[in-house]
């Protein structure tokens, strides 16, 4: 199942999709994965529950 027309589930070796998220400290501010190009990035996903 995919929800976007161009994507499959990204695998190791694929370019990561350019995800845009809101900053938790300021919901009007956007954080984009593409902002980090030029550096190595670890995305750590978690939840308060």
């Amino acid at each position: 199942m995919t929800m976007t027309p161009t994507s499959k589930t990204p695998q190791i070796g694929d370019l990561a999709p350019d995800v845009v998220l809101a900053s938790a400290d300021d919901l009007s501010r956007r954080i984009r994965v593409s902002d980090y190009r030029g550096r190595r990035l670890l995305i750590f996903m978690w939840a308060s529950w």
Partner: protein
Amino acid sequence: MWQQFVERIDPARFALLSVAVDTDVERVRPFTEGLTFPTAIDRAGTLGRLFDFDVVPNGVFLDEQGVIRFLHVGGFDIRRPEIAAQIEALIGADFTAGATPTYSRQESLDVEVLRIELVERPNDAGLHFALGDALLREARAVDAVAAYARAVELDPGDWSAHFGLGTALELQGQRDAALAAWRMALALDPANFTVRKQIWRAEHPERFYPDIDLAWQKQQLVREGYAPGA
């Protein structure tokens, strides 16, 4: 934990982005105090949908070109020494020089661009879903509800469309309708703990704050009749 890890690494080489998969930003903010790295909130489960994750915590490591070099689903905890060692190794690794993928946008993420694309493909459920995400980021709850509802209409078997709808309804203050949508998402994907815990948190907040009651969660799974692997 992560703060201590990040302080040891040259920020010119490596960055950490913490992403909270929560529908309520007030639950997230207490965890961000004293951190020097940013925390984003992913209220509609966008990353989970893209990467097909149905649990947290997870780690995704990208190199400086944005290529995925590592994925770890569930149990991704920097306190585990083997995980800390893996991340340090990835930071220092020399990735094979090969053809660098040409960077291209795989998703159109802005409301206006999506509306233009929808003129050409009005029955594309994925576009309505992406529009819902974009509207949710702008806190336009009413419009986000409409977009997700259309995605659900077009692709009623997709759990993530129902989940996005629930999140937008919650933002609008329609708690009962949000729970109904999340329940539908869970019915479509019963192994999805992101959805299940969201429902639990909304219906039993006392079991999550101030402390997470794991014993209650185990009992609740039994009460809900969910037996993994059965």
